[in-house]
């Protein structure tokens, strides 16, 4: 079979962001191809979340961000999603915010392994693990081309975290999705990323995980005080 040339879906050129005179990101350049999983890695305060927000056009920036699609789903870290002090919103009503059919909602619920009975439950009254799957289903229900997920497994225990990433991996395989993930977790990078972008205010490394994530590069990203993270395959 003839191999297709990958189609570029995002191009970022000389992206710089400043807040109140402080430089958050400087001269970031990279491209993402359709069907690629790019993981954005870096310590706290490296500008990872800021980068995602700029890619979505939620904050002002200098430079160029060119998307070849408009069909993008974004999820912030779970702790930033408000679940309390809301009106009596049911999960079903939350999905209906997106104007999708019942059939589609039921289908995606099955795909993420959730019981359709949960649809009648209040938005605020499902467990953290169920909420995680539910919100991923919400992000996927209107068939996006691209997922931008920011630390979505924050606050989830290790077992749960692995399941969420394998779930995403399954969708990635089935749907030819392009995924941009922000994470601290090097395990996730090794197992799921095609490319990795290491940040600490500026681009420190970019490329295939196995080639890029050298002890030297990691020390540069996380600083000399951080112990090197040893990755083991089970």
């Amino acid at each position, binding site marked *: 079979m003839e191999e297709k040339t990958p189609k570029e879906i995002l191009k970022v050129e000389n992206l710089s962001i400043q807040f109140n005179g402080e430089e958050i990101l400087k001269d970031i350049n990279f491209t993402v191809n359709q069907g690629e999983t790019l993981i954005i890695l870096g310590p706290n305060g490296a500008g990872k979340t800021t980068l995602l*927000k700029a890619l*979505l056009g*939620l904050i002002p920036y200098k430079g160029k961000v060119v998307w070849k699609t408009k069909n*993008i*789903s*974004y*999820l*912030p870290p779970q702790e*930033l*999603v*408000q*679940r309390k*002090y*809301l*009106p*009596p*919103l*049911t999960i*079903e*009503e*939350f999905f209906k*915010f*997106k104007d999708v059919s019942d059939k589609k909602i039921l289908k995606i619920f099955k795909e993420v392994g959730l019981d359709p009975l949960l649809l009648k439950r*209040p*938005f605020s009254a499902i467990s953290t693990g169920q909420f995680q799957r539910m919100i991923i289903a919400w992000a996927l229900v209107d068939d996006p081309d691209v997922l*931008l997920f920011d630390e979505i497994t924050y606050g989830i225990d290790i077992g749960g975290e692995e399941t969420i990433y394998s779930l995403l991996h399954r969708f990635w395989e089935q749907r030819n999705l392009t995924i941009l993930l922000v994470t601290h977790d090097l395990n996730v990078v090794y197992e799921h990323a095609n490319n990795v972008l290491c940040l600490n205010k500026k681009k420190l490394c970019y490329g295939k995980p196995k080639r890029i994530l050298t002890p030297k590069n990691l020390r540069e990203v996380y600083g000399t005080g951080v112990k090197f993270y040893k990755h083991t395959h089970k």
Partner: protein
Amino acid sequence: MKLVLALIMGSFIGAAAGYLGTLMLSKRMALVAGPLGHLTLPGIALAFLFGFDVSIGAFVFVVLGIILIWLFEIRTKLPMEALTAVVFAIGVAITFLFIPEEKTIPALIGDISQLSPNVVIVTVILSLFIIFATKKFYKKVILVEISEDIAKAEGINVKKNNLLYLLCIALVVSLGARIVGGLMTAAIVAIPACTSRNISKNIFQYSLGGLILGSLSCIMGILAFNFTGFPAGLLIILSSAFLFLISLFFKR
């Protein structure tokens, strides 16, 4: 005839306030209607002095108050609620400097004895506008509450929505000031929403409940006013509170 006009007007204002109130309660903004209601007082006082419609006076001053709060917030970065307290206190103090004594009670607790068909028609149109506008931004406001970033990424214009939302609040408060006065406007947005919250299990029931209960309280209050002669504003609030107490027995 006067009773019919009052019932039509009351039921529409009550419905609009109750419906919008369900959104304000979920945004924990229900109490904001209190100080904003007090802000209507200088406008109502001026309307009495110069003989124009009280809702127009009320609206101008509420909008002026909101703009002042907004400007103060940009300048001082103080919390919005603290600045609301500053602005509404100024409004109340100014009102009592010049309001004629015999007009104090109507300004504070409302007056529906002087209604013309034109006023009722305009009020009905404005109430319908509030209901339709609220329906349009209802889901969006809730999504913004859940996560502003998700909402923006979904293409929601948050600033435009907030502006429309504030405009509807200003309108409801100004219309409400006519029937329940500047003192108790918070009640017509907060009580029906609280009652509806007690008996509903999803957004659809909750928002529709607020609309129906808001309208029903106004109808009950105005009918009670017709029989007893006590001020309608007070009776509307008490009817609303009565429905709230009943809802406690059915709380889900």
